């Protein structure tokens, strides 16, 4: 990838080593991906909420699976694992049994989204000042 810049340090809650390998220093592309994440995650999360409210466990599992992939592209590898566990539970538990896991997932997703918003603005600033 072009546009290689050095010196940008990702938030410590993100897997910085993986992001460094994924973007290879291309902070312009990182900015694009973070922007796309913020555009897409509300759409996919709405599917999660709808499936949970409708007690549709197969769709709930599939929707969380999609979110899991998105979290990976912005460096939330630990949240990916949490999604994977939740996805697995969707095939063996009832919605009632998943309630606490679901609440935890919402909490972690909100926090992740907030961090990515901050990282996106930091990337924009970084790229702007180095452009």
């Amino acid at each position: 990838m072009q546009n290689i810049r050095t010196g940008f340090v990702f938030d410590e809650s993100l897997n910085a080593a993986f992001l460094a390998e994924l973007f290879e220093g291309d902070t312009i592309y990182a900015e694009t991906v973070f922007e796309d994440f913020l555009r897409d995650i509300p759409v996919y999360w709405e599917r999660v909420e709808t499936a949970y409210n409708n007690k549709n466990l197969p769709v709930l599992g599939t929707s969380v699976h999609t979110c899991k992939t998105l979290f990976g592209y912005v460096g939330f590898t630990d949240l990916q694992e949490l999604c994977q566990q939740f996805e697995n539970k969707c095939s063996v538990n009832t919605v009632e049994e998943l309630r606490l896991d679901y609440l935890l997932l919402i909490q972690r997703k909100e926090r992740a989204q907030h961090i990515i918003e901050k990282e996106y603005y930091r990337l924009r600033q970084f790229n702007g000042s180095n452009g």
Partner: protein
Amino acid sequence: MKLSCIIVEDIQIAADFLRKFCEKSDLVEVKGHFLNVADALDFLDQEKVDMLFLDVEMPGANGFELLDRLTYSPMIILTTSKTEYAFNAFQYHVDDYLKKPFTFKRFQEAIQKLQQKVAVPQTPANTTPTPAPTPAATTDTDFLFIKAEDKLIKLKKDDILFLESMRDYVKFVTPAKNYITYSTLKNMEEKLIGLNFLKVHRSYIVNINKIDDIRGNTIYLLGNQIPIGKGHKDEVAARLNIL
């Protein structure tokens, strides 16, 4: 030589990454990106490509269903964030498996492996490529020779129950014994398809005289169960005079 490909992926970020990696590698030409199996199949009906980057979980139908419906065998790289598909991937003879999100380095390893496969005739280490069935197979004889167990073995066509693709090898299944030879199902297809042999799945050719019965999408043949691929259903129905 650039490999032509399509991307079948419902997550835009993942597809964008793949496209970017393809461009960066300069080894792969992306002919299209499809968000679902149906659109990809429409394209593949019109145009053949060397390889597919194929997601597994997509709305409507999954990646394996696309493989069932394909009527030819491009190289396949599965792209998924689930490792549970590894067994299916093996069964479907996919060429590589990229766990999302993957880096450019991992992507390049996969592509280079496929390029070698295309560029170099596939030769197992320290062995001579098998001339598959000898010319005898292409003439109007009721037998063929295959190279297996370090010799040329004569097989009566009528003894063959079915052939199974095993990546770069083909397994000939007969009532008495199975033989594995270094070749591809595509190669065998060209030599055997005719009156008695029919490709019923991307990984199977069966001897239609040996079929016992068919239940749903499965052919039963002397204790063996052979799946019928969705893309082969119509031809199977026509050839077997299914009323």
